[in-house]
């Protein structure tokens, strides 16, 4: 093919552009943009993690040793914002970008230019957010939930609001792209109910994103106008209501937590059947469970607000609705276990992370059920019990699934096998230290330690020190992850097969490893037995 023709013929059958800037900054290729998202997410994971190290170092023993309380609050706030919007969400978008077209037999995302834009907004959003730490007024210190009136006392309101707007625009564009891709670009024969569970989970997540990101944008815009334009949406002195913000925020915030866990469900539902060499148990039930959880996520928001003084009827409604979520979530856990039952299992690193996910996410689910009981929540609320709960679902839940997914597809992305030995070293260090880190926090919360405090009574000293030690070692263990990735990308000599894992099914394993720059330019002919769910009857 003539070189001169490339501009008219898209990138044609050539590989990636040679020019670094052209390849990475102007890319419209779903694989390159997926890689950008994943690299960005890893960077944010380490930045957010370093904030967590500051928090755990200050909490190592009673008394203030390292930082002033205000800076501590900046760290807790930034840790959450960076991890949620910078690490977890972009990681899922990156995995979706890379894998959804490969899994449904599409040549690329439906809207490639928008795909480029939705990624390249993010570095600016986070540069803006992180820059506040170096400004005279300091970064946001009112918690990631940005409750007014406290959040309005900071000097960085405008920066944070604008950064959140950018992240929201990026997420909405990403979500539109994923919906458009899944609904329009599936290869012939890839019926909706033959799609991999990961694709299903992303389809549902994308609808959640479109539904709630504008709500968050609205909430923070009202903060902005309250701060700078004299409105009183949340200012009681001007006839507003501080609780209104919490309702709006959590109407976004609860679906948001499912945005961070549903794709993780999808990932685990890919990994477990592969290494159990057995089809997933109850495929349709898995899909319906994700859909029910997504629906329920819209009617449970006030369980974050049991202590704001809701009327009795409100407490009861939100308590019952929240408890209902345990049913579809339970179905998912039971189905993963049943998938393993009667299989022929091997335990490579992705499977280890998936198994740890099922156990530890379920522990997070158990504490979630306890938190749903409103009278008990009057004790748990805003204590370290809550901190333990959401770190179990987000770290050993979402992040373990992301790491598992990374190991699972890394050979497909790079064409090389990662080091199984170091992968396992990474796994065992992660799974042990993460429990040392977060399990004692349950006890701290039950004993009465509030969250978001830089210093504490001596009675809380033992468990805080254990937790901090776990935190440092868990943080250090993630450097192994970085090492394994660097090795697999640049140094590994071991070539990956096309079908990397013996039990792997699905279209992504029919393309070469590494996946060529362009795949499925002609729709693949789909044989149902090649798909993980080609013959689903139930």
């Amino acid at each position: 093919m003539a070189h001169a023709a490339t501009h008219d013929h898209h990138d044609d059958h050539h590989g990636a552009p040679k020019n670094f800037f052209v390849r990475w900054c102007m890319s419209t290729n779903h694989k390159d943009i997926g890689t950008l998202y994943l690299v960005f997410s890893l960077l944010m994971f380490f930045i957010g993690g370093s904030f967590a190290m500051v928090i755990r170092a200050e909490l190592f023993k009673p008394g203030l040793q390292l930082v002033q309380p205000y800076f501590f609050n900046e760290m807790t706030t930034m840790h959450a914002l960076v991890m949620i919007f910078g690490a977890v969400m972009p990681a899922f978008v990156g995995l979706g970008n890379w894998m959804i077209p490969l899994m449904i037999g599409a040549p690329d995302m439906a809207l490639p230019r928008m795909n480029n834009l939705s990624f390249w907004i993010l570095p600016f959003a986070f540069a803006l957010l992180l820059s506040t730490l170096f400004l005279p007024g300091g970064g946001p210190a009112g918690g990631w939930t940005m409750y007014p009136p406290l959040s309005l006392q900071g000097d960085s309101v405008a920066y944070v609001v604008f950064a959140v707007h950018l992240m929201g625009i990026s997420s909405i564009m990403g979500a539109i792209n994923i919906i458009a891709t899944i609904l329009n670009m599936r290869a012939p024969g890839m019926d909706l109910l033959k799609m991999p569970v990961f694709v299903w989970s992303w389809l549902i997540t994308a609808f959640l994103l479109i539904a709630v990101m504008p709500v968050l944008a609205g909430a923070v815009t009202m903060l902005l106008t309250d701060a700078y334009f004299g409105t009183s949406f949340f200012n009681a002195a001007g006839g507003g209501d501080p609780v209104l913000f919490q309702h709006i925020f959590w109407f976004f915030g609860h679906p948001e937590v499912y945005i961070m866990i549903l794709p993780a469900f999808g990932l685990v539902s890919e990994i477990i059947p592969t290494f159990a060499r057995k089809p997933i148990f109850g495929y349709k039930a898995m899909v319906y469970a994700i859909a029910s959880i997504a629906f329920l996520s819209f009617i449970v928001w006030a369980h974050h607000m049991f202590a704001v003084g809701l009327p009795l009827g409100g407490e009861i409604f939100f308590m019952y609705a929240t408890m209902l979520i345990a049913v579809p979530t339970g179905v998912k856990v039971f189905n993963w276990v049943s998938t393993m039952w009667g299989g022929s299992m091997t335990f490579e690193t992705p499977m280890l992370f998936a198994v740890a996910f099922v156990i530890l996410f379920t522990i997070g689910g158990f504490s979630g059920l306890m938190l749903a009981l409103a009278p008990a929540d009057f004790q748990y609320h805003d204590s370290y019990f809550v901190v333990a709960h959401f770190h179990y679902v987000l770290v050993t839940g979402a992040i373990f699934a992301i790491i598992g997914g990374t190991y699972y597809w890394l050979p497909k992305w790079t064409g090389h096998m990662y080091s199984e030995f170091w992968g396992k070293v990474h796994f065992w260090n992660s799974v042990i230290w993460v429990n040392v880190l977060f399990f004692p926090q349950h006890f701290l919360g039950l004993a009465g330690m509030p969250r978001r405090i830089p210093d504490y009574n001596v009675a809380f000293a033992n468990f805080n020190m254990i937790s901090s030690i776990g935190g440092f070692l868990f943080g250090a263990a993630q450097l192994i992850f970085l090492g394994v990735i660097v090795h697999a990308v640049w140094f590994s000599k071991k070539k990956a097969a096309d079908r990397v894992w013996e039990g792997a099914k699905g279209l992504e394993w029919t393309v070469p490893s590494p996946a060529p720059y362009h795949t499925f330019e002609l729709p693949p002919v789909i044989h149902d037995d090649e798909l993980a769910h080609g013959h689903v009857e139930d």
Partner: protein
Amino acid sequence: MTSGGIKRAVTALATIAFALFGGVVQANPEPGQLNMPRGVTTYSHVPYFLNNVALGVCVVIGILVFGAMFIAMFRFRKSRGAVAEKWSHNTTLEIVWTTIPVIILIVLAYLATGGLKTFADTTGSQMTVKVTGYQWKWRYDYVDYQGKAIDKVGFMSKLDRESDETRQLKSGLDPSAVKVDGYNTYLINVDEPLVVPINTKIRFVITAGDVIHSWWVPALGWKMDAIPGIVNAAWTNINEPGVYRGQCAELCGQDHGFMPIVVKAVPKAEFEQWLASKQQQSAPPAPAAASTAAAPATAQVAPAPAPKG
């Protein structure tokens, strides 16, 4: 509450959880404490009981699910020659494991609803205390007692001086040296505690003057947000005299970790005496509640009663 039958059925579970975590009745945090305190009020057993029941249910389900999973992981290993089976659904099983959780949830919901109703009922109170959160101290105003309005009894309650000096960055002071009667009170002691009578239904009306705070004493069994522009109500009825400690539970700025709450519950007679003496010294009028700047002026003339351990 009328949940007798079901309550007895789940008490067995609760007992297991209880046994696991030791039955010592604790009011204030102790080193190595593993479970929620039982509390000291007519209501505080409700969250404690629910917590133990829910924990027991979770432990049992956890043992079953994780047990099945570990059996699967050992039995169905490729290295042991396991051959993958082909089945991928079992309708009976799926119905069973959807129905059983629903039944468990109904039981839990029933118990929790009873507790919620009890807590929501603030009627019939014999005393009212207004709690106002400020950055970073609490104000307590005694509104009425036994049907009679109380005039001008109110004061600010903030972190005690010893904790405050110790908690400064690199103070070089040892937090474990901050003690009252042998109990470490670092960051959970105040200059002047809220004094209340026991065996009295006390209604708290809770609000805030600047940002949102949350009034939490674990021994009372609840917390309630203090929100500017909103007055929340809660109640307690303390059974045993004692000093009960808590902390602000809603991020409220840089000194959020340094605005503790101390409730000193005393017998009625002692309380009445205390109240009378307070009313006598009410010469410096309580400042308007909205003004945080007025805080220093409220340091009452009377020496603060030393909190008993």
